[in-house]
C-alpha cells in the first residue's frame, strides 16, 4: 500500500521541477504567455506527451496517476505549457471515443498538438443548447458555429470540436479554422474563440455519441485539473510560509503571530485534503472506476475552493508586496479564479454530487 508517487513518478516530478526552476529563473517573463521552447524541452527531454497514454499508442502506459503527479507539478509552477489541453483533455476525449488511433500516436510523438473545443455560451457544460452544426459532405463533415474558452486553441494543430450532427451531438477533428485569442485573466493558460465557417471535420467516435464520451473524458479532465489546483495551492502555501518565517513586524517574524499561523494551518488542512482527494480520484479512475464520477465532482469542487482560498491567504500574508505585479502571488490568484470556472463552477459539481446522493438507495450514497 502506497499513497504517493512510486520511484519513476518521483523521478519525473523532480525532473519537471528542476526544468521549471531553471526556466523560471532564466525567463520569468515567459510566465505571462505560452512558452513553446519550454514545451519542446518537456516533450523532448521529459517525454511528457507520452505520460499516461496506453502503450499501443506509443505512451508510457495507461496509468492516470502518472498524469496526476505531472499536473500537480505543472500547477505548482504555473507552467505555461499545453499539457492539460493536449495530453489530458484531447487525449482523454480520443481514448474515450474509441478513435484514438487516428491522432494519438502523432500527439505522443510530439508532431501534433491538440485541444478540445466544447463550450459555447459561458458555463454551458450540459451542452444542451449546442448551436454549432455539422453536416456530411462525402467522407468528411462541414462545421459551422463558434466555440469559446478553448484552452491553447490558437496553437493547437487539431481541435476536437463538439457539434450537432443529424445523429445528435458528435465530435470532429478539425485542422483548419479561424482562432481568435481571448484576453485571458490567467495569461499562463491561453484561451481562444474558434470560428467555424464551413470548416472541414473528421468524425471522432460514433455519430451522435459524443455526450457519453465527453462525460467520461471530462471526468478525467476534472481530476487532472484538481491535481493542478492542488499543486497551485501547495505553491501558495510554500510561498506564504517562507515569507512568514522571515518577514518581521512588531519585532517578530509575522509567522509567530497566531493570526498568520492559524490562517496557514487552515490552508494546510485544506491543501492536504485537496491533494489527497485528487490523487485518490486519479487512482480510482483506473482501479475503482465506480467511484470515479463522484470523486471527479468532489475534487473539482473542493480543490477549486481550496486553491482560491490558498491564493487569497498568500496575498494576505504577503501584505503590500503580494499586491504588486512583480510578485507571483497574483498569478496564482488569477489561475485559481480561472481554473475554478474552467470545467464548471464548484456549485454545479456539488449539485451533481447531491443528485447522486439523493437518488441513491439508502446506505449506498457513495
Amino acid at each position, binding site marked *: *500500500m*502506497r*499513497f*504517493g*508517487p*512510486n520511484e519513476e513518478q518521483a523521478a519525473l516530478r523532480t525532473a519537471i521541477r528542476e526544468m521549471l526552476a531553471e526556466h523560471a529563473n532564466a525567463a520569468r517573463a515567459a510566465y505571462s504567455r505560452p512558452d513553446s521552447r519550454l514545451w519542446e524541452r518537456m516533450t523532448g527531454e521529459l517525454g511528457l506527451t507520452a505520460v499516461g497514454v496506453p502503450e499501443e499508442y506509443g505512451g508510457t502506459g495507461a496509468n492516470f*496517476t502518472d498524469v*496526476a503527479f505531472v499536473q500537480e507539478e505543472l500547477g505548482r509552477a504555473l507552467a505555461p505549457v499545453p499539457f492539460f489541453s493536449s495530453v489530458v483533455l484531447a487525449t482523454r476525449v480520443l481514448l474515450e471515443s474509441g478513435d484514438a488511433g487516428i491522432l494519438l500516436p502523432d500527439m505522443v510523438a510530439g508532431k501534433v498538438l491538440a485541444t478540445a473545443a466544447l463550450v459555447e455560451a459561458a458555463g454551458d457544460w450540459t451542452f444542451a443548447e449546442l448551436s454549432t452544426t455539422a453536416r456530411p459532405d462525402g467522407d468528411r463533415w462541414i462545421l459551422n458555429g463558434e466555440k469559446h474558452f478553448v484552452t491553447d486553441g490558437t496553437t493547437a494543430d487539431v481541435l476536437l470540436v463538439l457539434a450537432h450532427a443529424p445523429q445528435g451531438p458528435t465530435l470532429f477533428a478539425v485542422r483548419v479554422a479561424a482562432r481568435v485569442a481571448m484576453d485571458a485573466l490567467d495569461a499562463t493558460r491561453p484561451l481562444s474563440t474558434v470560428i467555424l465557417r464551413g470548416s472541414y471535420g473528421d468524425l471522432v467516435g460514433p455519430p451522435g455519441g459524443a455526450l457519453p464520451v465527453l462525460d467520461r473524458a471530462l471526468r478525467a479532465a476534472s481530476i487532472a485539473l484538481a491535481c493542478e489546483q492542488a499543486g497551485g495551492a501547495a505553491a501558495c*502555501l510554500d510561498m506564504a*510560509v517562507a515569507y*512568514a*518565517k522571515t518577514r518581521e513586524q512588531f519585532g*517578530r*517574524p509575522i*509567522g*509567530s*503571530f*497566531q493570526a*498568520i*499561523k*492559524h490562517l*496557514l*494551518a*487552515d490552508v*494546510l*488542512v485544506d491543501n*492536504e*485534503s485537496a491533494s*489527497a*482527494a485528487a*490523487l*485518490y480520484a*486519479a*487512482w480510482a479512475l483506473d*482501479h475503482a472506476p465506480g467511484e470515479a464520477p*463522484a*470523486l471527479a465532482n*468532489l475534487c473539482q*469542487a*473542493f480543490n477549486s475552493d481550496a486553491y482560491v482560498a490558498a491564493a487569497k491567504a498568500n496575498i494576505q500574508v504577503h501584505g503590500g508586496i503580494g499586491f504588486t505585479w512583480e510578485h507571483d502571488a497574483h498569478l496564482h490568484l488569477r489561475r485559481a479564479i480561472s481554473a475554478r470556472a474552467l470545467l464548471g463552477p464548484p*456549485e454545479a459539481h*456539488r*449539485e451533481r*454530487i*447531491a443528485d447522486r*446522493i*439523493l437518488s441513491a438507495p*439508502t*446506505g449506498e*450514497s*457513495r
Partner: protein
Amino acid sequence: MDLASTPRTEAFRCGVRRFLAEHLPPGWRGLGALSVAERARFTPRWRETLREHGYLGVAWPEEYGGAGLSTLEQSALQEEFVRAGVPLLPLPTDPFGFSLIGPTILRWGTEEQKRHFIPRILSGEHRWVQGYSEPDAGSDLFALRTSARLVDDAWVVNGQKVWQTAGDSANWIFVLARTEPSAARARGLSLLLVPIEQPGVEVRPIRTLTGEAEFCEVFFTDARTDAGHVVGARGDGAKVALTLLGYERGAASGALYAGYRVELERLIELIRSRGLDADAGVRRRLAWCWSKVEILRVLGLKTLASVQAGATPGPESSILKLYAAEYHARITELALDLLGSDAMVRSGDPGAAKIGVDPLGTPNSPSAWQHAFLTARAGTIYGGSSQIQRTTLGEQVLGLPREPRPEGGRT
C-alpha cells in the same frame, strides 16, 4: 499510488463479517436501535463474545493475549464493527484501557507491568480512565499541578483531575503528576497508575451542557499507589503520555470515517423524510458534508499507508483531529437547521453515544441530533482545542516560529 486492498486483508475482512453475522443477535439493527436497558444487557455479553473469539486487544502481541493484527487489519476490523453498529471496545472504560494505557504500558512499561496489567485489561478486571486534564491546565498540559511524592514504598498523590469519561465505572486511573518539583515544566512529570477504590480518591460526576453526567472529576487526597507503578522513567511522563496520541488518531481513521458515514446516512434519511431533497441550499450543504466525509476516508488511507510503511505518526495527526472536529460541528448544525421548529423541542430517543458520533440504529430524532450538536461543541475543545491543533500544525508541520515567551511567564 497503490491503494488496492491485499488478498490477506480482504480475507480478514470476510472473516470479521462472518463473525458478526454469526454472533450478532438476530434482526440486529445497530446498537443505536437498542433501548438503554437492552444496551446494558447486551454490552457485557458482547464483550465476553469478543474475548472468546480473540477480538479484544487485537493490536497487541500474542504473547500478552492480543491478536497481533497489522494496522491494515485493525483498520478493517474497526470499520466493519462501525458499519455493523456494534462496539469493538464495549465497556465505556475500554477505550482507555485498549487504546491508551495498554499500548503505553506495552511500549514503555517493565516486563512485570506488562504481565500484571495487560491481562487484567483484557479480562475487564481493571477498568481504566485517563488522568491527564486538570481544571487549571486545560490546553496547557505542562501546567498541571497534581503532585506525587515517594514516601517509603508508595507514591502519595495529591491534586485534582477532570474530564474523565466513564469515570463512574472505572477502578484504575493513569495519572500524569508532577514528581520532580525542581525540574523544568516538561521534565518534572511522571505517569503513575493509581487504583481508584481507596479512601484518598474521590470521583464526582460533572453534569455537562447536555444535562447529563458524561464526565467526572477525580480528587486525590494522599492517595497511594505502589512505588513500582510508574510507567517509563521518573520525569519522562510527558514523553510517555504524548507518544501514543498521534498513533491512535492514525489507526482509528478508518473507524472515524465509517462512523461519519453512518451518521451521514442518517442525515440523508432526515432530508428525505422531511421532503427537503429539492431545497437547493440543503442539497449543497449535504454535498459539502459528503465531500468532507469522503476526503476523511482518503486522508485515513494516506495515514494508514504511511503507518504501514513504518512512519512514526507525528504532528500531522493534528490535521485529522482538526478536520474531524470542525466537520462534526458543521454537520450537526445542519441537522438542527433541517429540523426547523422541531429543533426547539426535545423529542424522541436520544442517541447511544455519550460523546462523539452515534452508532448505527440511532433514531432520527430531534433529541439525538440536539445531543450530537451540543457534544460536537466539545469536539473542538477536548484532546487539544482546534486552536491548539492549528498552533501545532503551524509550528511543527509548517515550521513557523513559536510565539515569544512572555517575560514573566512560566518556562
